[in-house]
């Protein structure tokens, strides 16, 4: 199928003897938005980190944008150029200004000319509504601003896919909204997105599918409507009642 941009076939991974991912099958089509939910330790982070090879899987196949992930460094480089990632802890480079955080990868990885890279960075900082912070250092920004800068930084590589690993979990409540807002914008523009998040409002609003993970397996996969109103598995019901219950 040509419009599958991410394809995971029977992916398994172990930490020592502990199986973190057990026969994961997942297909993401171009432009699709997937939300991954599940209890702590169920393997959500590990799963998304396998997609851009921050973690190596032990068995099965992962094909991203036509490239099969192998040990070959060139394949990994190809995939990482097309896949942007946003972390819970932002991982901005503290020694560089926000603008330089955004231009560094285009300049050195994509070899974009300086003028162009800066224009690109300002464009995305504008979209993330933090263009006025461009010349500050990360430590001078609030958490919400830092996370939006991190999203802008990833977008500057013009990725085809964006991975999010709990992008709002490290934020104060009043900053979660501003980050989710720009993520919704991004979804509306047609970006392919895989988001680990517990923001169920976000899942309802933009997700095409919600995958529920437990103990290294995807045990339920459904469109948000079905997922929230009539989950099939007991584990999912329990999880939903815990997360929506209060």
């Amino acid at each position, binding site marked *: 199928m040509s419009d599958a941009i991410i394809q995971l076939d029977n992916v398994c991974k172990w930490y020592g003897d502990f199986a973190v991912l057990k026969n994961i099958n997942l297909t993401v089509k171009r432009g699709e938005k997937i939300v991954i939910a599940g209890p702590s330790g169920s393997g959500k982070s590990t799963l998304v980190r396998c997609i851009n090879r921050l973690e190596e899987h032990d068995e099965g196949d992962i094909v991203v944008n036509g490239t099969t992930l192998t040990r070959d460094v060139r394949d990994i480089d190809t995939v990482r150029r097309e896949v942007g990632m946003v972390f819970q802890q932002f991982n*901005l480079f503290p020694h560089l200004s926000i603008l330089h955080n955004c231009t560094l990868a285009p300049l050195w990885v994509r070899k974009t000319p300086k003028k162009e890279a800066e224009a690109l960075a300002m464009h995305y900082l504008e979209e993330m509504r933090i263009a006025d912070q461009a010349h500050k250092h990360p430590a001078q920004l609030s958490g919400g601003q830092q996370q939006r800068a991190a999203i802008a930084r990833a977008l500057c590589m013009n990725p085809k896919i964006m991975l999010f690993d709990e992008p709002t979990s490290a934020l104060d409540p009043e900053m979660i909204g501003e980050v989710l807002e720009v993520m919704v914008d991004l979804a509306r523009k047609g970006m392919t997105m895989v988001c680990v998040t517990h923001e169920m409002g976000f899942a309802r609003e933009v997700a095409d599918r919600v995958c529920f993970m437990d103990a290294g397996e995807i045990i339920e996969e459904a469109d948000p409507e079905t997922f929230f109103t009539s989950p099939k598995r007991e584990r999912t019901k329990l999880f939903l009642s815990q997360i929506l219950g209060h």
Partner: protein
Amino acid sequence: MTPPVTAAPPTAFHRKRPVKKIGVLGWLHANLFSSLFNTVLTLLVLGLLVWAVPPILDWAFIDAVWHGTTREACETVGGACWPFIFQRFGQIVYGFYDEAARWRVDVVYVFGAVGLAWLMIPSLPRKGWVGAALLTLYPLVSFVLLSGGWFGLPVVSTEKWGGLLLTLVVAAVGIVASLPLGVLLALGRRSTLPVVRILSVVFIEVWRGVPMITVLFMASSMLPLFLPDGLELDKLVRALIAVALFNAAYMAEVIRGGLQALPRGQYEGAAALGFGYWQSTALIVLPQALRTVLPDIVNNMISMFKDTSLVSIIGFFDLLGVIQAGATDVDWTGPNTALTGYLFAGALYWVFCFSMSRYSASLERQLSQGDRR
């Protein structure tokens, strides 16, 4: 029913931050006599200063001899013997470097001083270029000028190098070479390639486990026995290599500390953006790691600078060596000559080390500007 509570309208706030007045007495109280313990400490330190400082100043300046050309001038007085320093100044600065060629040393000194000053004065532009020239062009030019043999400059053998010149050459080579070598060793020690890692560990641990003096002895007398026939390395070059490698091992451990302090997220952020190993090391990892350990790096450099005096053990006359040799010379033996020499040498070492310390402090201030919230 109670009327709804309305928030008070925001009042305009026009007050300036109050100025805190302290005054001399307030300062004294806050800094010197804030508690009984601090008062006792203050008095003790004051007593110590009154007891120790005037006699030293008396000896060094007031009772000192300033004029004269021979040791006779110093024989009758109980103070410092400055003529010794004046008479031997040439040796202290150049060693036994041919007098006709000393202008070459001067040129090297002037270029070095101008270049360093350029880097230290914040308002001057193009620091990158000056720094690069200082690290590449300058050593080349200095080498040609100091050793001669090119462009019709007569050769001055390294045996004649000495005094401040030798101290600065050894210190500069040690400091400049140990940093990049240390970086490579530190990276090697954290490498995922077992061969690279093991070699780095062995190198670091061997050099760190041997005293500097042993290393110098080996470089001066043992190394020639192992070198293949026909290959002869100048004794100074051998000593310089030994100093550079020895210090690189220390530098490596300091830098490794900086690498370890870097959160894993930084490596992951870089990898996710597509940076390869060398790119992320050069652009993201090292700038942060080196900055974290800058105080330790400078601390190492200062200690390296002072350790250069150990080369006198293998027959070189560095700054301290020249002064010591001069003071034991029959022309100048006297109760105060050696002391004057040591005081002068100590003061010179202190000036250099203190400058390094101040420069690093200002660099730290500049680099930490982005941290302020």
